[in-house]
């Protein structure tokens, strides 16, 4: 199984631990990643908040490169995945738009490749059975709340590979790793990542609601599949605790970190030190790391 790999900007900056563990997990599971040469930013929310054509053109340049490689794209970042899927969706049956986009990027974009999120590839294409077979150190006793956020599952017309209201793919992966999952209410609520810098107050409230719900459901930690979500839930947790005068201390993992851990990788190689809420104490207490 081979994919054109699109890391996206975050995985080269705030989320290097996601990038590293993505590569670790894929190597373990035999998913070959060929990084798209000279990829550019997908434009994220800012592009489609500004100009529709721009929001299609930026991902299209990357997709056109993947077309040349003849490979479907895998993107670990939910936002990048969503922008790519959106571009494919909108240009699929719209030849005029596809040509307009091709003109803008100065290369031919035909719409022949698919874009998948890393979670989809690992949970659906590879599947929990294969994952379970690779587990060396089951994550016994760890209770996680799987958090999907918005961009992995919405809008379903664009994404559509898991249930939009009560997705289960991450739960199935976590169960395969030996962890426990909680059924909770906020797994697809938005954390407001695109406002994290400009309207920190709003983000604090949204993050608070999510953390609250996870805690109430009895989770020890949150596991996610998006560098924005992780940055928000982890990085803003201190602010939330201060603003709302409460304590959570909920570590926020990338699902690939937990997979690597369960596959028996050295914990110190998994970037836990870069988390704002250090998860190592929790992992120690559960005798996982």
């Amino acid at each position, binding site marked *: 199984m081979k994919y054109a790999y699109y890391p996206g900007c975050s995985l080269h900056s705030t989320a290097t631990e996601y990038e590293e563990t993505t590569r670790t997990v894929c190597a373990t599971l035999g998913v070959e990643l060929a990084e798209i040469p000279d990829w550019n930013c997908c434009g994220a929310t800012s592009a489609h908040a500004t100009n529709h054509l721009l929001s299609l053109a930026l991902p299209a340049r990357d997709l056109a490169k993947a077309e040349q490689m003849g490979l479907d794209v895998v993107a670990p970042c939910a936002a990048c995945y969503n922008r790519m899927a959106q571009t494919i969706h909108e240009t699929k049956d719209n030849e005029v738009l596809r040509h307009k986009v091709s003109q803008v990027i100065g290369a031919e974009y035909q719409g022949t490749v698919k874009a998948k999120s890393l979670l989809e590839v690992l949970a659906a294409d590879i599947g929990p059975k294969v994952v379970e077979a690779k587990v060396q150190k089951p994550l016994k006793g760890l209770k996680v709340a799987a958090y999907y956020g918005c961009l992995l599952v919405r809008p379903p017309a664009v994404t559509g590979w898991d249930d*939009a*209201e*009560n997705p289960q793919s991450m739960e199935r992966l976590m169960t395969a790793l030996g962890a426990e999952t909680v*059924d909770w209410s906020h797994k697809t609520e938005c954390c407001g990542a695109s406002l994290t810098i400009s309207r920190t107050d709003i983000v604090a409230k949204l993050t608070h609601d999510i953390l609250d719900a996870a805690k109430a459901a009895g989770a020890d930690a949150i596991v996610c599949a998006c560098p924005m979500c992780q940055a928000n839930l982890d990085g803003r947790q201190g602010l939330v605790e201060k603003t709302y005068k409460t304590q959570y201390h909920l570590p926020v993992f990338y699902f690939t970190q937990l997979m690597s851990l369960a596959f028996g990788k050295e914990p110190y190689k998994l970037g836990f030190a870069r988390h704002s809420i250090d998860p190592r104490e929790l992992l120690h207490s559960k005798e996982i790391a």
Partner: protein
Amino acid sequence: MRRVGVFVCWCGSNIAGMVDIEQVKAAAAKMPNVVYVEDNKYTCSEPGQAAIQKAIKEQNLDRVVVAACSPRMHENTFRRTVSGAGLNAYLLEIANIREHCSWVHPDKAAGTKKAVDLVRRAVYKVAKNVPLQRASIDVTKKALVIGGGIAGIQAALDIADAGQPVVIVEKTPSIGGHMAQLDKTFPTLDCSACILTPKMVDAAQNQNITLMTWSEVEKVEGYIGNFTVTIRKKARHIDTTKCTGCGICWSKCPAKLPSEFDLGLGQRKAIYVPFPQAIPNKPVIDEKNCIYFKTGKCKACQIFCPAGAIAFDQKDELIEEKFGAIIVATGYEQWDPSPYGEYGYGRYKDVITGLEFERLVNASGPTEGKIKRPSDGKIPKDVVIIQCVGSRDEAKGIPYCSKTCCMYSAKHAILLDEKIHAHPYVFYMDVRTPGKGYEEFYKRATEEHHATYIRGRVSKVYQKGDKLVCLGEDTLLGKKVAVEADMVILASAMVHQPAASKLAQTLGISYDQNHFYTEAHAKLRPVETNTAGIFLAGACQGPKDIPETVAQASAAASKAIGLLSKAKLETEPLVAQVNEGICSGCLWCKPICPYKAIDGKVIKERIAGGKTIERTVASVNASLCQGCGACTVACRTGAMNVLGFTNEHILAEVDALCL
């Protein structure tokens, strides 16, 4: 030379506004065979029809063309008009210059040109028309009612009261339908069972009514007045002549399963009557779940049955019977709201449907009428009712209003307050109460029972502790609101029966995009189908409440009674006809006929030299033939034709339109 009169209708401004009537008249006057042209503001009105009759007499017309609305609208009207003037009813053609022209083409010049062409088509066609006579056929004096809910029961009782025999075919073990599941009925809050069960008993005891429960319609052949219906009488595994309905068998049966009648909220046995007042009060054995059928062991029912009525070896029976009329009363299903992931039906036990609530509140239901929430049996304090679940939601594939939910939600709100003093919060988009006493009933819910009505669709229901948080917008305030409820009732949509389209195909009737059966005319023929002799009653035709269902059932019954009371039926003469002179007798037409109306027959013929020979030709049974004409295309010679739509007609129409 024919003498054709052309009558151009204005239809007020409907046609005249968009088509130049004078131009059409002038063009018509020059068409072959046309000897008279006249226009009229409303040709279908009495003066309009009188004008046609006058012209037929005074101008000695032998053919008539009316250029007006669709023939589907007034062809029969004008057929009566011309026959009233002594002309054969079939010497008439309609040019549809309204639906196909003035209403769809805003360009008057182009529209007028098209109208002229359409008139020419009719003029050319009518020249080929010949007088046709209606034939008469016998009527089997018995009606079939498919479905034993309130619609079917009412229709059967009315037909039986008129002295005609009627058979009710019901697929479940008992008649009663959805109404038997309900607790109270709006707007009077009578107990549903109290008004339904007497009717069920009447149906069972009426000499003219035969009940066939646990039975399904398998095949329908024939035509109005003469349907031959094959009914599958499913094996009950009970000798109903011996069974007394004492109930020992189901008390002894060890196999417990969720009860369909209680929507899974209660249990039944593998041998069961669906509910205590079931009619007939004789059980059935559910083969799939019966321990004896699964393992060959048990037979507890047989051992304990004092009447010796258990018959494990009973088989399905196919019964063929003749009927003159069929009433379809197959009802509806409540929509399964699982596709609303955001409401958590199926995920949270205390999110239930309206029909489930009916069972919870029903004295003969699984909780004996105590409103307890399914998860922990707690009596709820705050209850949210969400209206339009499924209904009016195109994203969920149900674009229509289910019509009954506003009222039953108000009823649920009243019952919640009355029975357990719970506080009902009703999320609605519109409250629709167009019915006698309905608005007053809604008023009672809000004023006397203090139900909180919130205008807005709930966006999400989620569990928080032992509460279900319902997030909505109060759109009248423009504020997001949350209700922390103990139980949530989803007023789920009324949808078609799962097998509705299959039955439609068996019957040869049509259904709409929502799989409700289509009436012959939305306003003027609301209980008839396009297939003569088949009528509709109740929610199989579209969402309906009980009063409306009963009214429609009686209407359908009166149509059926009218049909059955005739000694003979007149048939449409527009059927296939064989020109025996040129028929080769190849009979390739025969397998194409859906009504098995074509067969070979041997005719005798004198040929050159004075010899008489025998040869086979195709022959059409005119009372079986419905005039579809599929056979004609298989006939290379053109020996097979359909009267009214002959090859001569259509070729002339093509030529007229291509001029």
